[in-house]
């Protein structure tokens, strides 16, 4: 019987010095996963440091199914049997998604456990903590629980992360776990350590937006051989306190290594960019800037976009190529229209030189969720994945149309960056195709910014 428990209670009452804790970042069963290489279990790394340093557990280990291989790619394989395709919606909203497993196969953990058993040198884990990045990615967790139960019948299984936080009942019903952690551990601002990866060095280090803890984490990562850093904020706002926290973090750490590079991939809001932040962004050590969508009551807050881009240009950042900057545009939100999305795409493209469509999914318990509760409760939990567009029927936008938007964004990016369709090479046919696609793309509505100009 799975027991719901808070993070703090779990740590205080169910973890002892004799515990050998195995932390697991599970694979993801999904139809699409564009940012898979950035999947680093920040929560596990934070809790690992606590268990190791503060609680002095006998052993803390990590098994990361999502760790990229030596080529820098995360394993990907089509699912088989009844899971091979996933059907969503009815009539014109119907769509059949091919399903993939992102990450290593489940049995990789069994093989790892078997290999480490050899020689009797290490005792079996007494607890297995499985995290979840998103609440709707639970299929693999169900299967993993069943397998772990067989491989380690004596071990306690703990489910943590977004899944038990937002879908506790589902965990209680369907997971063969002992504990479901339904609240945060309170380590959101704690530092992380890559030590647990051992020889399987990850590509980058994820750190929370906390200048005090980031220095030691980045210092350790550099000694470990990792010089790429991403920064996350628990409140999804890297520019909070007028950007002073971010500026302090980067100023304190950037000189730790000449090759240190920062990738700001989420939590950058155009309306919060200041002149000091723009100057910071122009530095060589910052290699990626992805700006979130900035809304006003109706449509985009174009003034904020204009102000932000002006500051960035003044700081010397070339926005026309979209090499360093790009902007997100939400798709799949409730009550949106195709025309509105296209307009947003042009605005963002004109601002940052490159646009990335960001599929949307409502968070259970939020105001938006509550306002569409009846509608959302008619949807299967796994279909709340943003890649399946849960609001499609509400918006009367078919999933095919959503996919057309992805294609359009690719064409427009190609117009700016001229890098799309590189897979066709530089043949005459490929060039004709590019030109044709470019013409078709520009038949769409013009940029809102142009109208303003």
């Amino acid at each position: 019987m799975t027991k719901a428990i808070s993070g703090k209670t779990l740590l205080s009452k169910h973890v002892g010095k004799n515990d050998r804790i195995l932390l697991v970042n599970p694979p993801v069963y999904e139809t699409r996963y564009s940012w898979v290489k950035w999947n680093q279990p920040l929560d596990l790394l934070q809790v690992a440091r606590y268990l190791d340093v503060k609680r002095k557990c006998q052993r803390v280990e990590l098994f990361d199914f999502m760790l990229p291989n030596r080529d820098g790619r995360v394993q990907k394989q089509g699912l088989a049997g009844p899971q091979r395709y996933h059907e969503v919606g009815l009539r014109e909203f119907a769509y059949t998604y091919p399903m993939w497993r992102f990450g290593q196969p489940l049995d990789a953990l069994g093989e790892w456990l078997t290999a480490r058993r050899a020689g009797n040198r290490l005792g079996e884990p007494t607890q297995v903590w499985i995290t979840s990045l998103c609440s709707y990615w639970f299929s693999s967790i169900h299967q993993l629980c069943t397998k772990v139960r067989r491989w380690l019948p004596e071990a306690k299984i703990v489910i943590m992360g977004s899944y038990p936080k937002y879908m506790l009942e589902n965990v209680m019903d369907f997971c063969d776990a002992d504990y479901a952690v339904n609240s945060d551990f309170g380590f959101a601002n704690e530092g992380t350590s890559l030590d647990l990866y051992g020889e399987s060095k990850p590509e980058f280090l994820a750190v929370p937006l906390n200048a005090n803890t980031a220095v030691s984490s980045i210092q350790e990562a550099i000694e470990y051989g990792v010089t790429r850093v991403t920064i996350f904020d628990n409140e999804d706002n890297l520019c909070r306190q007028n950007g002073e926290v971010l500026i302090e973090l980067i100023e304190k750490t950037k000189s730790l290594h000449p090759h240190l590079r920062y990738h700001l991939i989420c939590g950058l809001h155009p309306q919060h960019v200041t002149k000091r932040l723009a100057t910071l962004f122009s530095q060589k050590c910052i290699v990626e800037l992805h700006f979130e969508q900035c809304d006003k009551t109706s449509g985009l807050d174009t003034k904020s976009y204009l102000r932000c881009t002006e500051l960035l240009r003044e700081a010397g950042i070339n926005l026309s190529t979209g090499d360093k900057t790009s902007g997100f545009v939400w798709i799949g939100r409730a009550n949106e229209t195709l025309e509105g999305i296209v307009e947003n795409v042009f605005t963002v493209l004109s601002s940052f030189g490159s646009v990335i469509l960001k599929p949307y999914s409502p968070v259970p318990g939020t105001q938006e969720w509550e306002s569409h509760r009846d509608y959302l409760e008619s949807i299967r939990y796994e279909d709340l994945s943003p890649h399946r567009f849960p609001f499609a029927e509400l918006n009367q936008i078919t999933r095919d149309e959503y996919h057309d938007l992805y294609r359009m964004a690719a064409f427009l990016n190609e117009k700016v960056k001229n890098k799309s369709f590189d897979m066709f090479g530089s043949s005459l046919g490929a060039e004709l195709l590019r030109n044709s696609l470019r013409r078709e793309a520009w038949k769409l509505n013009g940029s809102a910014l142009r109208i303003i100009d």
Partner: protein
Amino acid sequence: MESLTKNRLTRKSEEARMETRPSRGMGVGGVDPSILRELSGVYKPFIKAFKELISNAYDADATEVHVHFSDDFDSVKVTDDGIGMNPFSFRSEFTRIGGSSRKWAGDRTKRGRNRIGNKGIGFLALARYCDRMTVESSSARPFVTEFVCERTNVPVDLCKLLGVPIDPELLCKSLNCEVRYRGKKTKVAHSKYRIVPESGKLTFNENVGAVDVELQIDCSHLQFKATLDFDRLLKLADTADLEKISDFTLIEVNELAKKSKGGTSVSVESLKPFVKRELRAERRKGFVRNIASRSGFEQVVWHLSRCTPICYPATQEEGGRLATLLRDGAPPTLAKLEVSHGPSASILSRPVYPLEPEASKLHEDMIVPVDISTGGLIAKGFLAGYESVIFPAEYRGVSIRVRGVAIGEPTFLGAEYLLTGAHKAALSQITGEINVLSGLDAVDSLNPGRESFYEESEHYISLRSYFRGDGERIGGVLARAIEAVLRRSQARSSLNHTLGRAAYIRKAMDDVSAGVTHLMTQGGKPAIAIREMLKSNQSHTNGLASAKSASFDVPVRIAGMEVKQGRRLPEPAIINYSDGQITIDVSRPEWDNGIILFKRRFEVAHKQGSPHHPIAEIDFKESRILINWGHPAKAQMDEKGFLRSALAWVLSRTASKGDADQMMEMAITLLSFTTEPND
């Protein structure tokens, strides 16, 4: 004691040759050019001819030999620190057809080495592969020769008699001459003859009748440089005047300021275009495993290391059984053979597969020692079998070495033509080395190029019999090596089958377990039905429980080897061939008979029920699922398919409680669900 050479020449024949000889020319004994051509063709390919220079150095008691190829592969120079040659022995021994040192200097060298050369045609070995060969040497050995002089009223030209164009004054400085009356021990008084320094002629003051003359020349201050013009020699037509052959060798004799320390240097010049082409050939592109795919120069170096008497490589095997076998059978070798080309140089060692760095581990039970002592044939060595095919392919087979030199290519002495199937395939996993310490070295045992044995030779017949038995059935040491290879292969194959079967069965249970989890998380009627079913605590068995167990556990024996159960081993199973035991790690998941059905664990019990028993039954009370492997459906599918079908059937049937549609839906999901597509 220095070796002596005795040449008996009649003055008549010498006089005839003196008339037309150029001042620096030297004869080769009046052999027909066509015969010389034939003899030069004995050595092929180039490397087999070239190795003769190394053999000569070995026979000259050299310890170190340096081989240097010019940058453009136009020439190659071999330098050794052996005892060297004086100009007279060069003429009478080196360039004389049939003048093998083994005949005149005995079978063993001063260092106790068994001489390799035995036919006296070695100097012709490279004739087909180059235009010229230059030999430079000196030796502290004195040269001694005798001749009969029938008439003493005519002066004898000693320079011409010796056949070497040497300055008469230089010759006289080094010469000691004794004259005896023909057939008697009585010396002729010195007053009755003298040697004229200006002409180098032996002149008698009076006619004393026929005499025996002994010439002893101190060569310690003589050095010579001889050039053998093979191009000219081989271009002579078959019908050419034999006398024309005489000037194919030019020789210069000089006086040394210091006493000679020995040593010889042979330069092979103007290598033929086809030889240069071979040497310059580039390494084959892509994945290269065999020696034949390496660059031409690399191939030459490798083959040279095979067919010359050099040391075995020093390896970690030192002190091991293999090292003992090799050391026992190894004749003396050159201390160092260095080959260089351009700036790179390498010291060669004898290529023996088990001692090569790329060789996989050689197991004790795969070594078959060779120890022959019969009818004058003494040989020692080993055969070694491997679990996988040997690469480079050139290492497959057994090298037979006579006097340290490999005879031909590695071989199985004809067994390869008699064997078929797995036994023949096993040959690609066998290598070996046999050193012949005595026997098999006579002229009637080896062909002139030392490339093969004469099969009618008694020693060869003895060797073959020991090696692979007589007749068409393979026996001897080769049969033991093949048996060792096949035994391992069978054990490994049977073990893999056992482990694979266990993993296969385990996978079926895992997929059904995952299928149940999937059905539960999908919700709806099937989930409710399964949830209800798993709450049950009743037994639904009807006779299958009492049926005898079907064997799906760890077997007692695999391929005749005893099986033991272990836990937490570094590998799924460990084979100990020496003890004939296999230890299987039963703590691994594939040996677990448990199946988790949504939070509840069941044990799967394999039963050999009757055809009338159901295909499977569930005992909720005991948390067991009984599978009837005696069910007729088993005949229609493999083990994994049957187990999966049985589990799907019994779970769907029990959960659906007679709802046929639901049962079918559940069964299809359970039959098709998998978490690992790589099946």
